C-alpha cells in the first residue's frame, strides 16, 4: 500500500488519537493514504466512525501486540 503519511498515536488517550488523525488528514490530498498507530482500545470504533462521517475510507486495520494500526484513504 502506498502510504503518504504515518502518525504515531500510541499511548495517547481519548480524544487525542482522533485529534491527531484529523490534523494529519488536513495535510493530505484526496486519494492519499494515512497510516495511524494507536493503543487506545476505543480507537477502532472511533476511527471507523470518524472516517465514515468525514467521507474517508478505512481500507484496513490490524491488531498486533496491543498496537492497533489503521489505513485510511482520504475522501
Amino acid at each position, binding site marked *: 500500500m502506498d502510504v503518504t503519511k504515518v502518525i504515531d498515536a500510541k*499511548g*495517547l*488517550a*481519548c*480524544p*487525542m488519537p*482522533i*485529534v491527531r*488523525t*484529523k490534523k494529519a488528514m488536513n495535510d493530505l490530498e484526496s486519494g492519499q493514504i494515512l497510516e495511524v498507530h494507536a493503543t487506545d482500545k476505543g480507537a477502532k470504533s472511533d476511527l471507523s466512525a*470518524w472516517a465514515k*462521517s*468525514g*467521507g474517508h475510507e478505512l481500507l484496513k486495520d490490524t491488531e498486533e501486540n496491543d498496537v492497533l494500526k489503521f489505513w485510511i484513504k482520504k*475522501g
Partner: protein
Amino acid sequence: MSETKKTTIVLFSGDYDKAMAAYIIANGAAAYDHEVTIFHTFWGLNALRKAESMEVKKGFMEKLFGKMMPRGVDKMGLSKMNFAGFGPKMIKKVMKKHNAMSLPNLMEMAQEQEVKLVACTMTMDLLGLQKEELLDDIEYAGVAAYLGDAEDGNVNLFI
C-alpha cells in the same frame, strides 16, 4: 462532504470532571470538522477564569463570590468523591498514569482547534465576574446567541 455541522455545549457545571467531559466532546467534535461552541454559564464560567487574582472594582458580595469560586479549571473540585480537595489530586495522578490530557491542556487544544468559547454575560453579572478576570480570546453573549447556534446544531448538550 456536506456543509459544516455544528456542536454546541452549555457548560453549566463548575466541576472538574464534568468540564473535562465537555472539553473532550468539544475537541472530538472539532476533529469531526464541526463548528463547536461552548457556552459557559453559572459555575461553568469559572473554567474561563484566569489563575491570577485581578485588581477589579467589586462590591462586597461580588468579592465574596470571587473568593469562594475556583480561579480556572485547575482549581475545580470533583462532582463525586471530592474529599475536600483530595479527590482532584488523585484523579490528576491517575490521568497522568493513563496519559489522559489534563483539563488545562484540553482547553488549550480546544482553542487551537478554533472551538468558540463564550461567556454568558447575565451570569457573569450575578457572580460578579468581569471581563478582565476571564481568558482573552473569548466571546460574550446571551441566550439568543446560544440559540442562534443551537437551532441548527447537530449535537447540543447541557453539562
